[in-house]
């Protein structure tokens, strides 16, 4: 466990050398934040609050979801991923197998360090940029802050278990771009990143509820906006933990299969 945190800390430090790139990505984050905020504002100004999202809610949602892009990293091209797929492509993954740590936990530590730095730098900055033109909602009670933080960390872990599986398919496909793009598009819509899933028509909300993606954007945003009481937050956490267990175990099984069956690309 100590080793795990040490790896996480090192990953955080390594990523923090990419300060300039992190800030470069801030510009599109803020631009999209503003565009989406205005579009959704026009919607709720006409229709009234939808699924608990009022005018302040949709604006906050627009910027908070932008802040999640880097830590969640499920959108393919939306920011740096952990780099596992790249290492499978080059064959460097063979080196990871020699490490004295569990393969999946090693990559989790790398990803947590990456996500933490991404959120604290670009995430916080792009959220703060929303205040230039709007008043955003932030959790004010200690309980609200704690709940938001917990749900955010869990969202990153859910997204890790999801991306771990996606990255592993590179063993079979040899080229990760197709899978990343497909997974990224699906994630963008069903996570509630493009538009809150509560805006969907009923049947589509059912589809979203059956997928793990909602646990990465929609649910964290709802908790951040304070739309859930203590019981509701417990429900959100339960959903997230369930997906972490399910996807985590599936990823482990797939990793074992890949590492036993597949020839690592040399050269």
């Amino acid at each position, binding site marked *: 466990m100590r080793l795990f945190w040490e790896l996480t800390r090192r990953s955080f430090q390594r990523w923090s050398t990419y300060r*300039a*790139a992190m*800030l*470069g*990505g*801030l*510009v*599109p984050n*803020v*631009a*999209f934040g*503003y*565009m989406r905020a*205005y*579009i959704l504002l*026009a*919607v709720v100004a*006409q*229709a009234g609050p*939808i699924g608990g999202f009022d005018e302040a809610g949709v604006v906050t949602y627009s910027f908070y979801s932008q802040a999640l892009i880097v830590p969640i990293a499920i959108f393919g091209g939306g920011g740096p991923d952990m780099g596992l797929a790249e290492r499978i492509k080059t064959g460097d993954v063979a080196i990871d197998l020699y490490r004295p740590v569990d393969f999946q936990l090693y990559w989790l530590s790398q990803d947590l360090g990456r996500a933490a730095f991404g959120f604290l730098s670009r995430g916080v900055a792009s959220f703060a940029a929303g205040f230039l*033109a709007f008043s955003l909602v932030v959790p004010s009670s200690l309980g609200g802050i704690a709940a938001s933080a917990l749900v955010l960390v869990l969202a990153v872990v859910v997204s890790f278990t999801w991306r771990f599986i996606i990255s592993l398919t590179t063993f079979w*496909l*040899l*080229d*990760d*771009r*197709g*899978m990343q*793009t*497909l997974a*990224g*598009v*699906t994630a*963008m*819509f069903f996570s509630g990143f*493009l*538009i809150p899933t509560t*805006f*969907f*028509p009923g049947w*589509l909300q059912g589809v979203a509820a059956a997928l793990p993606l909602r646990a990465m954007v929609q649910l964290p945003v709802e908790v951040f906006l304070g739309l859930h009481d203590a019981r509701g937050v417990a429900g959100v956490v339960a959903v997230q933990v369930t997906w972490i267990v399910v996807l985590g175990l599936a990823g482990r099984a797939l990793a074992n299969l890949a590492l036993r069956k597949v020839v690592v690309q040399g050269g």
Partner: protein
Amino acid sequence: MVEATARNARLWRRLIGARIRSDLQYRTSLVMLATGTFLVTTMDFAMIAVIFGRVPSLAGWSLAEVAFLYGTAGIAFGIADLFVGSVDKASERIRTGSFDIILLRPVGTLLQLVTDEFALRRASRPLQPLVVLVIAMMALDVAWTPLRLAMIALMIVGGTVIFSGIWVISAAATFWTVEGREAANAVTYGGGFLTQYPLPVYGEVVRSLAFVVPLAFVNYVPALAVLGKDDTLGIPGPLRYAAPLVAVALTVVATVTWRVAVRHYRSTGS
């Protein structure tokens, strides 16, 4: 001049052919990529559909009218992306020093870069907006005279040229700062998104920016003329027909910017 153009066209075909053959090496991935790229645009439209499930109109524009904007923006962006999208790889080449190779070859720098990464998968990008545009045109209560159809064609050509110019200028900016690539995405991909919605939806600062980076002329302003809509922003009437001029002006600016940028290039030496 004519001879040079013909030679460039031949070169373009050969370079693109090589690119496509290399893409075909990973067939499964290519199919997934093409599907994914097709879905990227579909998702954008799904968002519009979800919005209109909640409201009857957006800034005074109906679903059919917004779909018209979405279709024209998507086709223009898709074609521009197909032809010059890979120019944004310039920053990567500058960082690694491989831009030197580009300078050594006896072919134009811009031509080499746009053929460098010609992605077959991108060809699927304009298809979905095209389908949406056709359906939108059928749903709209507009008499589609030959003149109006010609205006739409001109609008799409103009939009493609404007987007292409923006791509090139953004890529040129990365010659001064390598980190600029990410920032440039705000204008390129951001512009692709911005033009899917009617301009009055946005706040004043975003709207003004759409006239500076002439995204307003990709589709919103010419669409006012095509659809005969009343404008709520107080845009002078003659400007509705100015999009082709804007496109030509931007092409000149983009070409000059690119030349200045390439001259500014200092190799990293690695």
